[in-house]
């Protein structure tokens, strides 16, 4: 352990001071003295297994492994000035090489291999070994992603230690002993860890190589461009290794604030959608009912004329734009600017919108120091894997507890923290009950800040843990156990996800008909947010952070792709803000709030919506009702990477670029603004979103407004964003490129009052006795992943998980083919019986069934009730 005290020692005649607790290796490295290593890795606990780092320490017998030897005051160490140590290291390399195969010319590690480097630097240069080398297994797949060459392995334990210390997935180990020792899994079981790809990076030889990258390129042929992973809200920093204009591999780029030196296997292996043959390569225009290839000028002309015609005949209220949580900030910003200033409407929205009252997580590395972590309708392991890794660090290194409040068990339930598996729709009652149990432990609001803690006690009277047991399906004992843990926690944190927000409308039973004003609908998630705030306040004003699913969820909202908010989340109804925006954008702006997505769909049904532009979203796939209505919009324009369900309904389809093909930026779940850099050329005629929007605007705006659309690069768009967005004035581009730039956080007013939330028990429906809840899997057949062939092998077949008690009652067994039936529709699936789901609830993963689960939903605000029939 490192302390503040300094220790002084001499290494190779150099006087060095370093903190007590460092190892000799660390002290030498910090002083610029090179010591070769194999087993040592700065992110792993030292083991001293490979003997490569031997040094001479005065006063000790024999040579010492510097990676494990702690520094002591007055120590005298010789690394390169000790002939004995130099010779020992040279001999060690020679030993390692006696049985190491001469594979370098065909080994993927060649060119970035520590063994190659050290053989040159510290080894003898040639071999005296002429005997037959030892033979072990050479092409041994450890699972879908990694192939092992046991002959190349130098038994350094790095891969084992990483999986054990970081991922908590001790799946690899060394079997046997002596010369016969082999790295492998137990009984040849395939690796399942979602972190396994990292072992490829840290293996100091070519023993572990990627099955996806294998033989694709020599590493020196790759151009490595810094990038950001687009597959979840974490936004891990990566390098895209490109050869011949194809992404061949993705490797992590160190960022201590986000992904340290790791990435998850999804981010690493699921890149082939970028170079997929089905990518759109030319604009498509509908002619005689069929989408036909067209040139950009033809296509843009059709779009411009189409929009103009609608503006002239039906006015701007008949047009709408739907953006996305997946595209860049620059795309989102220009898109809303176009819709507002050119199309003259605030009919703007995006799906999966983060509610304005939700607060982003403050920091990922800080998760390590939390002692109790509450996961509320959030499953980081599948939704935002790097969050899981930081939580595991807290658990595995510091013994943190994880309380899982979710209708089904999640991977992080494995650490024995209580699982409060509630029936979907009863979450508000459950959280009230947890508050009540917390008060029962004698805990009052810790900071003494709250003004109405006594009222709370009275409100919560009906929510005793025993009383809610029947409605929530959660055992009173589990609630009390969670309360005990929380009452004793010193640094708790609450993380909540999109699934928790759905408890708001479900639990308040205030079902609004589709088409109610958007503010009212947005208000429906309020109770879910209020309860989170109540809990945080009771625990002493602790942090509660939202963990969204999509890459740029925060960016879409911040850029103002919303009917009610301009960039910077400034209200469109505020005259001062509006006139500021109008002057930036060189055009008058509509003062009325626009339609949100549901409003647009109502307008479509009533035939009031005549044109719509959809950017990077596929609502037809995710909502069956929406799909039908979109088909009725006379002039639909869709911009995307693939011919999605929604795109096939369009009049004009515009081929866009992927994250690998255009510069831009995104905001991750902690609010960091990060740069994405183009690493390759787009396929065919595909163009960047900012370019498409700019071109279209130039076709449509009058001559005197042309200058307002003179963007010639995404950097220019960012320049304007920096002026328009509050807090962006000091935007630091260098920081944004290096590791992300954090805009100043608006000072949140500290909450002082508990908000009363009345939880209403959801109505039972005897005909449809079960509640369906859905969730994400790490690997699915979603928009991008289903074009990433390597990960498709690990996507399970669609299933519906049901509790053994319910399965018994309805006569269902594992593997039964069934129909899930709701009032809205039906879907075929296969039964999985498991006690990992709460009684009365069935869980079905999103995006793995042949048909989308949306056929079962009648409106997108509540979990449907279903029956399961054979």
């Amino acid at each position: 352990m490192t302390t503040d005290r300094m220790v002084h020692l001499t290494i190779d005649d150099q006087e060095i001071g370093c903190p007590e607790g460092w190892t000799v290796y660390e002290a030498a490295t910090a002083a610029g003295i090179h010591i070769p290593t194999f087993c040592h890795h700065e992110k792993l606990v030292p083991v001293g297994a490979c003997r490569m780092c031997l040094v001479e320490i005065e006063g000790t017998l024999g040579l010492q492994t510097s990676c494990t030897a702690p520094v002591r005051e007055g120590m005298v160490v010789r690394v390169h000035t000790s002939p004995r140590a130099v010779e020992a290291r040279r001999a060690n390399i020679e030993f390692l090489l006696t049985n190491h195969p001469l594979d370098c010319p065909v080994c993927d590690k060649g060119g970035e291999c520590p063994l190659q480097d050290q053989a040159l630097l510290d080894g003898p240069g040639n071999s005296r070994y002429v005997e037959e080398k030892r033979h072990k297994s050479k092409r041994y797949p450890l699972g879908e992603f990694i192939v092992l060459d046991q002959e190349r392995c130098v038994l350094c334990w790095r891969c084992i230690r990483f999986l054990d210390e970081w991922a908590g997935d001790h799946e690899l180990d060394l079997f046997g002993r002596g010369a016969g020792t082999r790295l492998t899994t137990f009984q040849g079981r395939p690796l399942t860890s979602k972190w396994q790809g990292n072992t490829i990076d840290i293996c100091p030889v070519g023993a572990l190589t990627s099955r996806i990258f294998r033989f694709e390129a020599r590493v020196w042929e790759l151009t490595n461009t810094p990038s950001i992973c687009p597959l979840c809200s974490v936004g891990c920093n990566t390098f895209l290794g490109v050869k011949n204009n194809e992404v061949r591999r993705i490797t992590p780029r160190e960022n201590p604030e986000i992904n340290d030196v790791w990435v998850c296997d999804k981010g690493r292996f699921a890149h082939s959608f970028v170079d997929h043959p089905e990518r759109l390569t030319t604009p498509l225009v509908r002619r005689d009912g069929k989408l036909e290839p067209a040139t950009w000028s033809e296509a843009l002309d059709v779009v411009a004329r189409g929009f103009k015609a609608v503006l002239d005949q039906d006015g701007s209220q008949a047009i709408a734009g739907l953006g996305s949580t997946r595209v860049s900030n620059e795309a989102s910003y220009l898109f809303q600017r176009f819709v507002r200033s050119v199309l003259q409407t605030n009919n703007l929205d995006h799906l999966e919108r983060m509610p304005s009252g939700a607060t982003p997580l403050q920091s990922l590395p800080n998760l390590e120091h939390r002692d109790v972590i509450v996961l509320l309708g959030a499953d980081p392991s599948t939704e935002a894997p790097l969050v899981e890794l930081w939580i595991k660090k807290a658990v595995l290194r510091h013994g943190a507890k994880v309380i899982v409040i979710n209708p089904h068990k999640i991977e992080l339930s494995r650490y024995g923290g209580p699982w409060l598996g509630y029936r979907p729709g009863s979450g508000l009652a459950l959280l009230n009950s947890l508050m009540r149990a917390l008060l029962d432990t004698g805990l009052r609001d810790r900071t003494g800040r709250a003004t109405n803690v006594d009222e709370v006690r009275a409100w919560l009277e009906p929510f005793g843990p025993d009383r809610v047991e029947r409605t929530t399906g959660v055992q009173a004992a589990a609630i009390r156990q969670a309360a005990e843990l929380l009452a004793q926690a010193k640094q708790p944190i609450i993380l909540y996800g999109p699934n928790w927000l759905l408890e708001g409308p479900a639990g308040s039973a205030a079902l609004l008909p589709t088409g109610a004003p958007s503010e009212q609908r947005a208000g429906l998630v309020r109770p879910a947010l209020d309860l989170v705030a109540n809990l945080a306040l009771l625990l002493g004003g602790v942090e509660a952070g939202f963990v969204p699913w999509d890459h740029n969820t925060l960016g879409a909202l911040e850029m103002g792709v919303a009917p009610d908010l301009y960039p910077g989340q400034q209200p469109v109804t505020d005259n001062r803000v509006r006139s500021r925006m109008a002057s930036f954008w060189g055009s008058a702006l509509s003062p009325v709030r626009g339609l949100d997505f549901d409003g647009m769909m109502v307008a479509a049904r009533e035939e009031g919506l005549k044109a719509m532009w959809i950017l990077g979203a596929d609502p037809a796939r995710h909502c069956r009702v929406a799909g039908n209505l979109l088909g009725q919009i006379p002039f639909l324009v869709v911009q995307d990477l693939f011919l999605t369900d929604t795109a096939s309904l369009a009049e004009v389809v515009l081929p866009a670029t992927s994250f690998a093909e255009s510069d831009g930026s995104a905001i991750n779940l902690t609010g960091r603004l990060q740069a994405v850099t183009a690493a390759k050329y787009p396929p065919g005629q595909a163009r960047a979103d900012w370019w498409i929007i700019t071109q279209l605007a130039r076709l449509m705006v009058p001559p005197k407004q042309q200058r307002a659309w003179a963007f010639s690069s995404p950097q220019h768009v960012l320049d304007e964003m920096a002026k328009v967005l509050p807090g962006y004035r000091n935007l630091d581009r260098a920081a944004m490129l290096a590791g992300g730039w954090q805009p100043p956080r608006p000072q949140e007013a500290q909450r002082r009052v508990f908000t009363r939330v009345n939880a209403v028990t959801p109505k039972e429906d005897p005909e449809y006795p079960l509640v369906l809840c859905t969730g994400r899997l790490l690997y699915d057949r979603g928009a991008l992943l289903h074009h990433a062939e390597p990960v498709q092998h690990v996507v399970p077949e669609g299933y519906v998980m049901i509790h053994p008690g319910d399965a018994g009652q309805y006569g269902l067994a594992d593997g039964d083919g069934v129909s899930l039936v709701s009032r809205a529709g039906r879907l075929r699936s296969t039964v999985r019986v498991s006690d990992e789901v709460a009684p009365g609830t069935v869980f079905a993963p999103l995006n793995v069934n042949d048909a989308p689960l949306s056929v079962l939903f009648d409106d997108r605000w509540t979990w449907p009730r279903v029956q399961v029939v054979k």
Partner: protein
Amino acid sequence: MLTDKSKEEIRRIRGEYPDPDSALLPALYLAQKDYGGWLPEEAIDAVAEIMELAPARVGAMASFYTLFQRQPVGRHVIYVCTNVACSLLGAEHLLEYLGHKLGVEPGETSADGRFTLVEVECLGSCGTAPMMQVDEHYFENLTEEKIDRILAELA
């Protein structure tokens, strides 16, 4: 199957160490007894579950020590040390002798299912080399005649 008694015993041993790894050897030993002298996959999984350790960790441990068997064994297991001291005093010859007598190579079990022959590293009895261990007993200062007698006495 692990007997309830063994399960309880394993839990007790586990509780005696701050780190469950430390209790693995006695735990595996108990499991090996319950499973008829060797450790099938199921036994490793069972121990791993009680110890809350990964099966790979437990399996690797079992594969390191020669006193654990991962293949079915005969009624008795003969461990012959062929490390330096024993070898100098003829252990290799005795191993061959035993193999011949039982009709097996090291690692194999005799056709009548009575004996499994295993070659091992030092068992810490160098002063009385050559030696072998049969089940849980040491037999020291071995000669061919002595081996004949020992085997004859074992059912």
